[in-house]
């Protein structure tokens, strides 16, 4: 990794708003799906993007891969601005970034054989044809741990785990520099999840691609990722290396999230303190003024009135640990909601 090499992905102040409802009759509104998200992914790095439903994490993925056009902000892939490229201009770049979707049942074309599905990106990008293409498909099947005969089968004949392997093989067929994985294991059984996570990690080490890994499951992120960004209601509230974030979460939301994660060990789990957040995530149609977390924040009384008036910026509090909270400054932490030693038990 040389110093002059640009990050694989650089996202700056990304904003995506959706207009909903009819404006004609004075109704409708704007969904603030993402409101100013910035991060970058270094070559070969795995960045985890964590958040609950409605936090905007999938919208980020869709913007990055340019299935959506951002409202504002910029996205750079290996230094090149792709924010507003047309579909035609994007086509040659499609082999540099690929996506694995959550649902292995609906994201594979049921009318193509698995071999055709995996080979399609190579064929479309004119990287291989004929015998050569078939050989590459066989190699890819081998790489993701599928028997080569399965390439003549249709997706419905495969199990969920096998289908997700097909999805991975397809995404990796063109050796992308960036893989975007949106909840790739959430729909799978536990024992199958483990296999897919192991596979993803092995492939990443062999092939060295960068990865934006989107999930709601903190344990998965800890297992897989180098750095983690936590999203809440369209904004990143905390971004740090996996080690720092899990050892010393600073934002009250991150603390609550970590305390709520269930540990599969009754001895540990039953002794944990948990932070119960009041209420639900507010509607992105009308996000709260000021700090977006304030309506559920257990420390709201301490940060008011600043939190009602001003949205806290994401600032570096030391060592590349970014936090967006009025109570956190360099050298000053927010009050601990839980004993962090408990979190790393």
């Amino acid at each position, binding site marked *: 990794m040389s110093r002059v090499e640009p990050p694989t992905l650089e996202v700056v102040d990304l904003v995506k708003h959706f207009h909903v409802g009819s404006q004609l009759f004075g109704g409708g509104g704007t969904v603030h799906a993402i409101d100013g998200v910035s991060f970058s992914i270094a070559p070969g790095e795995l960045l985890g993007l964590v958040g*609950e*439903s409605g936090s905007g994490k999938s919208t980020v993925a869709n913007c990055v891969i340019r299935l959506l056009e951002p409202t504002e902000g910029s996205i750079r892939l290996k230094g090149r601005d792709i924010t507003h490229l047309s579909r035609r201009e994007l086509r040659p770049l499609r082999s540099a970034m690929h996506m694995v979707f959550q649902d292995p049942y609906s994201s594979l074309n049921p009318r193509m054989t698995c071999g055709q599905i995996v080979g399609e990106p190579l064929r479309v990008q004119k990287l291989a044809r004929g015998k050569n293409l078939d050989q590459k498909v066989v190699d890819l099947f081998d790489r993701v741990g599928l028997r080569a005969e399965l390439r003549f089968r249709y997706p419905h004949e495969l*199990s969920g*785990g096998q289908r997700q392997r097909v999805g991975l093989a397809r995404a990796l067929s063109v050796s992308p520099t960036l893989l975007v994985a949106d909840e790739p294991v959430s729909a799978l*059984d*536990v*024992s*199958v*999840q*483990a*296999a897919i*996570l*192991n596979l993803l*990690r092995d492939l990443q080490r062999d092939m060295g691609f960068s990865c934006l890994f989107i999930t*709601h499951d*903190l*344990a*998965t992120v*800890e*297992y897989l990722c180098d750095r983690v960004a936590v999203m809440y209601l369209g904004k990143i509230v905390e971004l740090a290396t*996996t*080690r720092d974030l*899990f050892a010393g979460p600073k934002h009250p939301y991150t603390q*609550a*999230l*970590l*305390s*709520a*994660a*269930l*540990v*599969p*060990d*009754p*001895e*540990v*789990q*039953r002794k944990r303190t*948990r932070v*119960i*957040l009041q*209420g*639900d*995530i507010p509607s992105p149609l009308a996000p709260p003024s000021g700090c977006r977390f304030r309506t559920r924040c257990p420390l709201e009384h301490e940060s008011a009135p600043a939190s009602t008036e001003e949205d806290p910026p994401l600032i570096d509090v030391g060592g590349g640990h970014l936090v967006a909270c009025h109570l956190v400054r360099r050298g000053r932490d927010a009050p601990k909601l839980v004993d962090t030693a408990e*979190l*790393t*038990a």
Partner: protein
Amino acid sequence: MRDLSVRFDTDDGTVHAVDGLSFTLDEGQVLGVVGESGCGKSVSVMALLRLLPPTAHVTGSAEFDAVDLLSAPLSHVRRVRGREIAFVFQEPMTSLNPAFRVGNQIGEVLRRHLGLSRGDARRRAVELLDLVRIPAPDRRVDEYPHQLSGGMRQRVMIAMALACDPKVLIADEPTTALDVTIQSGILDLLRDIRERLGTSIILITHNLGVVADIADRVIVMYAGRKAEEAPVHELFARPEHPYTIGLLGAVPRPGGADKQGRLQEIPGRVPSLAQLPSACAFAPRCPRADDLSRSQVPDLREVRQDHLVACFHPGVEWDGG
């Protein structure tokens, strides 16, 4: 519940969804039933409440308050269902009727089972919403399900289940569709209900974290059979069935920051229930399998007090995969 078996006759042959399952549930106990999709965990409780379609062949017995629910007349089961044994489904979005106000849906249960008047039913519905800690219950009672969030809907479902003060609450994946921070709130609520009302709870889940959090006893199911049963601390500390051991090793643990360590994989996949062999169903995926386990079905054996394992070669060491 004794020796429950459920078979479905399908075009592809007979499917043995549940095969010889027995368990007991004590008063005030939380029983966790764990397993992956298709292991028969949901079907067994559906059978218990006689909710399966007529194509299902159910055998065995399920004694509840000295009456066998599986052979009792349906009219009796209907009285028990909802009143003594209540059910919370996985999907709070689809199991509430979108066209009725929340209060009316809870009230319906009260009027049907307890014969309350409209006014009384409404007052009781408000109380119940308050019990499940829904803020401003007197306002929420007149809202429609779509106006509530997922977590709130699940609370409404629980309120509905608790309407008649049941002895047993069966919760099928009650937190699966919910976010982490909402999930822990629902688990706290279940714990609270057990403590305050003394309700027994059967909790069906695939999430070992949920079981570790709340269950007293755990049954691990695999391919329609019980693989292991033990008190929760015993099961997590000394699992003996290779499937349980594999399952525990497959879950990434928060705080288990050893990034070099790989997750344990269980090779292969869950067998088709249509062609279950007369052998240990886990044998094809098991590192301990031998000729014995490939030719006979293992019986449940007590390896330690109150700890049952259906395996010819039980033991706490993980030895492969």
